[in-house]
């Protein structure tokens, strides 16, 4: 899949076009796929890209609002909204461990009697 073949460039590059295909993220980052991919892969790249933002610890000044994918002579623009980003980050947000909190508070009850 796409994620195995890309390079991440640091933010501040608006757009660079590679020979066959490039994926650019407005103002904040740039993805370049050096191998050719199918049109369908380009269209479904969104999840891979979002996932990479997370796993690579890429620091974002601003979450991109769109990703532009250029495949040969065709350009695909993928809109990203807040829900997309929330989905990415919520995936590994750890839920609050209430049981552990209760156990902890029970252990110190006597200090407050």
């Amino acid at each position, binding site marked *: 899949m796409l994620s195995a073949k890309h390079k991440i460039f640091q933010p501040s590059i608006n757009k660079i076009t590679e020979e066959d295909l490039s994926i650019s993220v407005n103002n904040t980052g740039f993805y370049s796929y050096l191998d050719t991919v199918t049109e369908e892969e380009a269209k479904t790249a969104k999840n891979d890209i979002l996932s990479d933002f997370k796993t690579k*610890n890429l620091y974002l000044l601003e979450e991109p609002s769109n990703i532009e994918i250029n495949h040969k002579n065709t350009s695909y623009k993928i809109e990203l909204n807040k829900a997309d980003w929330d989905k990415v*980050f919520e*995936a590994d947000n*750890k839920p609050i461990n*209430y049981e*552990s909190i209760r156990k902890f508070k029970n*252990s*110190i009850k006597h200090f407050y009697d």
Partner: protein
Amino acid sequence: MINPVYIEKRHNRDNFCCEEPVLNEFIKLYARQNHSNNISKTYVVLNDNDVIAYYTLVYENIELKNIRNEIPSDLRQSRKDKIPCVLLGMIARDKSLKGQDYGNFLLNEAIKKTYKASLIAGIKGLFLTPINSTVATKFYDKIEFLQKIDEKLYYIPIATIEALIKE
């Protein structure tokens, strides 16, 4: 009810002895000076006038680039390369209090202070740095709501702190 208070010159720290020499040295030589100079704030538990336990808090900026493991998502989302937080730099109790949950008590007090601080200024949570990699790490590892970022850094997000206060 035990109530930790600000460290004062008149408090006796000479007899304080925990398992970690650095923490013994800090309370005897540096804690009060740093407190007076507003470098850190140290809260002590007293038995008569003797310090028997203490913890020290500072405001800190944790640099994300120094974190080697995966950064917790709520920190990454903060859009800052430095994360404002309260740091629990020192936490110790006298050896004689071993097994009485003083560590948990002091941590809870630090959490309460952090919660108050979060209402005044923007901070992401309480960070903890174990001074001794075996004793302190063992202590922190037992507390399941602590997020272990790496061997030298633990983290309690404000959301968890709020849950602790309200639970």
